């Protein structure tokens, strides 16, 4: 029950099928890594989980702590506790980071509740310090003119402020220099808890040196073809995806 459970998910866009019987369970308290070659459907999976309407779900189910979230609105899914750190975060002109996160938090409050502004800013600054984001960023328009690395940090900042139950990080490490990688990993590790599950999409085993996963999955052609411990990522880095492909070919013949 206490998991993000994806069961036989089939997703297509137009005529093209992208996810094929995709099945995966991320229990609360665990961090899973998802690796796979370009175009295999990792980001598609992430967006479908978050309720993106462009994709057509042919069949399957996605249970968040036992509750179906497929077909729900993106904001409902967010309120249910799922957070997606985007591979390509969008720019929101004129809306400061502080006001944006504030609006996101306020969207979770009941009609009678109101946000405690001083407490909010204290918490925001605390998380910004943790992620080594300069205070002057609070008033900058979200992601507008941010460098690649700054955008990724801003994603983790939002995640830290919203405290979701399940986090999906789509290539949060790409575009980060080594220092930023450490900082961001630090932020993610800080949020590790028995009450939270994470799915980390990445191409590089290097990230997994900092965020040590409980399970590593390899995705190929819209499904998971291999799962294992942390060692799997190392093996993958050494041998490349052809190795998985060859193994698959053997298994299928």
């Amino acid at each position, binding site marked *: 029950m206490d998991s993000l459970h994806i069961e036989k998910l089939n997703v297509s866009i137009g005529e093209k099928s992208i996810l094929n019987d995709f099945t995966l369970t991320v229990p609360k308290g665990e961090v899973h890594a998802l690796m796979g070659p370009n175009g295999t459907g990792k980001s598609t999976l992430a967006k479908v989980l978050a309720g993106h309407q462009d994709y057509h779900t042919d069949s399957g189910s996605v249970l968040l702590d036992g509750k179906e979230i497929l077909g729900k609105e993106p*904001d409902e899914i967010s309120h249910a506790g799922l957070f997606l750190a985007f591979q390509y975060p*969008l720019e929101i002109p004129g809306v400061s980071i502080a006001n944006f996160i504030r*609006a996101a938090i306020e969207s979770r409050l009941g009609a009678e509740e109101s946000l405690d502004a001083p407490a909010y800013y204290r918490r925001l600054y605390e998380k910004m310090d943790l992620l080594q984001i300069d205070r002057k960023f609070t008033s900058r328009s979200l992601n507008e003119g941010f460098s690649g690395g700054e955008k990724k940090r801003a994603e983790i900042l939002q995640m830290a402020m919203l405290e979701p139950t399940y986090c999906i990080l789509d290539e949060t490490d790409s575009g980060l220099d080594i220092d930023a990688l450490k900082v961001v990993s630090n932020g993610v590790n800080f949020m590790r808890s028995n009450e939270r599950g994470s799915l980390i999409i990445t191409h590089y085993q290097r990230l997994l040196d900092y965020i040590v996963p409980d399970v590593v999955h390899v995705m190929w052609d819209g499904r998971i073809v291999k799962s294992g411990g942390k060692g799997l990522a190392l093996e993958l880095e050494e041998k490349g995806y052809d190795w998985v492909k060859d193994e698959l070919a053997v298994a299928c013949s």
Partner: protein
Amino acid sequence: MSATETIDLDFEKGNFHYDTEYDYDAGTGLSEATIDYISGVKEEDSWVRDFRMKGLRTFTDKPMPTHWATRDLDNIDFNKIRYYLSKGQTPSRTWEEVPEDVKNTFERLGIPEQERKFLAGVEAQFDSEAAYSRMKDDLAKEGVIFVGSTEGLREHPEIFRRWFGKVIPTSDNKFSALNSAVFSGGSFIYVPPGVKVKQPLQAYFRINAENFGQFERTLIIADEGSEVTYMEGCTAPKFETSTLHSAVVELVALKGAKIQYITVQNWSNNVFNLVTKRARAEEEAEVKWIDCNIGSRLTMKYPGVILKGRKARGEVLSIALAGDGQHQDTGAKMIHAADETSSNIIAKSISVGTGRSSYRGIVNVPRNLKGCKNNTECDALLINSNSRTDTYPAITVRGDGNSVQHEASVSKVSAEQIFYMRQRGLSEAQAMSLSVNGFVNDLVREFPMEYSVELKRLIEMEMEGSVG
């Protein structure tokens, strides 16, 4: 006096109305008899009645400007409109004396509360006449006049007659002529030399009756070195049939005076809002129009400043929000008529769904002038692919010593941006209003605080209404 039962109640602030009985009703349709009726109940001097009759003739003679404006204007049926409705021509000086249903209306719109909090004076117009009008005593002692047009023309002709109809001639356009024929209500303000009115004066225009036409007439004269800020708010309930609002607003800023005129318009989408607003700025005077157009079926409004004296400054900051099915045809006019005059126009429009925004501007600097400056900035934001936006800037700057700067941009809120915001928990409407607020943010920062809060709330309400 009359029953005070609520007919309609909606979550939207302005969308309710009381079934009111009127003691004065000019009936339906427009003729010389209508004007005789209006002029009669107001006990006007013959020059005012003549002014009205000339207005009627000009209105009848002028064609509808559909050769350049939208054909939707042809849908106004002038024979179905009620041109004058009131419970009397003398406004109360205390809220207690205001008839119950009218008082309740303004209570619900929050006017008495705002008056207590931050206003120096209030005039509250209900259909054709002001029901309440009051200004702080100390301002009266300083010689400030803040009354309705009926009272202004009757009690202070020596001040108002000189400028009445001089900034905007009757024949300016078909609707200024219509207003000249049937005007009623609006504010007449005079600020004596050197007097600086610190808090804003506010007028609130409320349409309550169906098929009604509201034609207020406002004239503000800021004498030498004086300062005044005037705010107007407007609402109407949602009726099936269309309603016409056609005001004329004239401002006169004498040497070194400053006038700031702020509009918070929130018409329901059955209102044709066809308004002529213009100011005359003498030497070193400054006029700033802050004009926000939210709601209405069609708004046509191009506030202008005639920069008459050396170093006069004119500014128009405008925001137009065209929701589904609405058309905001707005802009600004800056007529430079003296050396070293400067003007600034910042216009931001937002179109949502099938909403349509047009910017129309005129900036004119003739060849013989020196040291004039204009800056024009038009930005459009489109939310949803059906939206349409047009820009007709018409900037004519002649002569070597004058400078002009013009920028225009069109941006879009993409489905991916909305998805991103919704992933963080915002509803579609919240995501849209946040984008809109982000878009107008740098402009709103220039507005007085009370006004920017109100504007933000109105934008949210409009966005709520525009998603399914």
